[in-house]
């Protein structure tokens, strides 16, 4: 007969086997391993934190494996940013002493993950005076910097570690003048037809596709009305081009369908926080995930479960980019900056667009700043692309200076405006209350 002690041993053994099996399956078989998450991830990675293999490419291999993962996602943007501190600057053995203090060859030296309590702005996890290690004697070269604290190098609107395209000295001097605002400025127009031609795609001839929807049991009158006035209609993109023919009909075409013609838009969308989960074959991002993970960005409660894909912002039938540029954003976003847009100077210009009184290329929307129109070159053919990675210019916000602010404003005003947290919060309703000295200092040195 089993004694109580033996029963306890058997129960313990059974539980141990079950637990081992559960954890082993998760560790060795399952793609997602929630019980092995060793700590909260940063705002940049929390959406994909369950997809361990995105960063941990191999189970062993240490820092270099993680470095390879960082580079696989972030190299292109760092190259475009003309990274001021690329790894190649530090691989020479002459830097051995400095690397012993701060190994700048590895991203994880400054950006460790699963350490939320150590993480501050830009996902940096080392103290903000990191510039000191190499630039301790900067005041000898730049007497104007005498007495400046090292934690202010990258936090006072003067320098960034990676992207200094808009704040290097000669650029400051070259762009020191100009009106604070140019009301006649115009945004560049995108030309999807020219882009398609550059990659060998042609807009279909009229009548090439099919608009036959008799096989559908739903009322298509509204859809047909929306489509008939759309850019897709004028470009001869018909029902069958996206949904397939009657035999292969797809009710809700996936991102891959849009990608056929809008490859760069899709690529940039997948690179940002709206699309990064889809890029890792995870379910679409929803505002609720942001709220539950960090809770530092407000969303409208009735949109918390809206899955983010192309058609979330772009009605696929009306293809109304005016709606996508503001209304779509404000359907979900409800933070102070977003909710202040309509009453801001930028928002009032956009209201004129919505009333048909102003050309949208001569106005400012949410997308103007967060999804700027940038020039890209494909096989030597330049075109204007709407950058669908809304994080690309977000942090540090000086990345917004050249592709966004300077379209209408001069550089000194723009630097001051982006350095003013209150002005950002009220969506630039007013003048900057701060002044950054970098342009003045550069002009003084250039005399």
């Amino acid at each position, binding site marked *: 007969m089993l004694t109580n002690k033996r029963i306890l041993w058997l129960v313990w053994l059974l539980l141990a086997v079950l637990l081992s099996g559960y954890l082993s399956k998760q560790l060795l078989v399952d793609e997602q391993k929630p019980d092995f998450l060793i700590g909260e991830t940063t705002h940049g990675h929390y959406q994909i934190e369950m997809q361990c293999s995105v960063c941990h490419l191999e189970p062993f291999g240490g820092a270099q494996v993680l470095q390879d993962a960082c580079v696989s996602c972030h190299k292109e943007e760092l190259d475009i940013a*003309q990274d001021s501190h*690329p790894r*190649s*600057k530090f*691989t*020479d*053995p*002459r*830097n*051995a*002493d400095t*690397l*012993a203090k701060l190994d700048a060859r590895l991203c994880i030296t400054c950006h460790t993950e699963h350490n939320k309590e150590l993480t501050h702005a830009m996902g940096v996890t080392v103290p903000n005076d990191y510039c000191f290690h*190499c630039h301790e*004697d900067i005041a000898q*070269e730049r007497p104007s910097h005498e007495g400046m604290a090292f934690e202010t190098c990258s936090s006072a609107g003067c320098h960034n570690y990676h992207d200094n*395209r808009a704040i*290097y000295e*000669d*650029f400051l001097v070259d762009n020191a003048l100009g009106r604070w605002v140019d009301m006649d400025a115009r945004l560049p127009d995108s030309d999807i037809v020219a882009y398609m031609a550059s990659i060998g795609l042609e807009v279909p001839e009229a009548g090439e596709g099919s608009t036959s929807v008799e096989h559908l049991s739903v009322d298509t009158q509204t859809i047909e009305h929306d489509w008939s006035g759309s850019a897709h209609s004028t470009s001869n993109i018909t029902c069958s081009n996206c949904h397939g023919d009657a035999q292969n009909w797809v009710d809700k075409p996936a991102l891959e369908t849009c990608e056929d013609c809008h490859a760069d838009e899709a690529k940039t969308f997948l690179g940002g926080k709206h699309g990064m989960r889809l890029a890792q074959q995870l379910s679409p991002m929803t505002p609720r995930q942001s709220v539950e993970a960090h809770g530092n960005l407000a969303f409208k409660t009735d949109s918390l479960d809206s899955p983010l894909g192309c058609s979330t912002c772009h009605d696929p039938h009306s293809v109304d980019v005016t709606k996508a540029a503001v209304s779509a954003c404000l359907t979900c976003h409800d933070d102070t900056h977003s909710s202040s847009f309509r009453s801001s100077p930028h928002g009032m210009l956009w209201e004129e667009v919505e009333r048909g009184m102003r050309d949208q290329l001569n106005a400012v929307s949410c997308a103007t700043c967060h999804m700027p129109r940038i020039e890209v070159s494909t096989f030597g053919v330049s075109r204007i692309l709407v950058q669908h990675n809304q994080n690309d210019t977000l942090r540090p916000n000086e990345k917004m200076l050249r592709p966004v602010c300077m379209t209408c404003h001069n550089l000194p005003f723009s630097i001051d405006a982006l350095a003013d947290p209150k002005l950002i919060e009220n969506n630039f309703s007013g003048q900057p209350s701060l002044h950054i000295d970098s342009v003045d200092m550069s002009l003084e*040195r*250039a005399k």
Partner: protein
Amino acid sequence: MKYSKSMMMATLVTAGAALSACSEAPDMEAAAPTGIEPKVFTDSLFAVMNSDRANYTQLIVQRLGPNVADAIKPDEHWEDMDIGAPLPAQMFRYGSEKVAEQTSDFTYSLQSLWPINKQNAPKTAVETAGLEYIRDNPGQNFYGEEELGGVTYYTAVYPDVAVSPACTSCHNDHVDTPRTDFEIGDVMGGVVIRVPLGM
């Protein structure tokens, strides 16, 4: 002294083959280890670097910009220009960085006692000694050894001489230059080549 993994492997293979041969034919004399002396290796590398650098400066940069063509402008911020070209020192650094992506068997950099970018001032005692030596002994090179990060390096320093007005005018006129009297033929800095020893 042998300098690279590949050369060391070649030496080991050769030595192994020699030992093997010795065991079969004890009368044969052991084969001498083969390889390139670090000095020959670094001198050869410098010959290539120096030629390419001089050619880019004289055949390309000197003929661009306001000098002759007035079309493609060599400029420190060439990436920000519609039609710009990298300066010779930048071109040299880009080459060095590309090499570093491919091998750690040697590294090289351009340094100076009068650097425009202060990060290119000498950092180690051997760099300082080498740059001072080539400054004081025109036409001569400097060779030494140093330990950096726990690894011993053969370090060679070669004079980087102003070969065209593009060199002197740019350095003399730059807002950050600590020296404004360079003339053609002057040693403006040094090419530092390092080879890890015993790897």
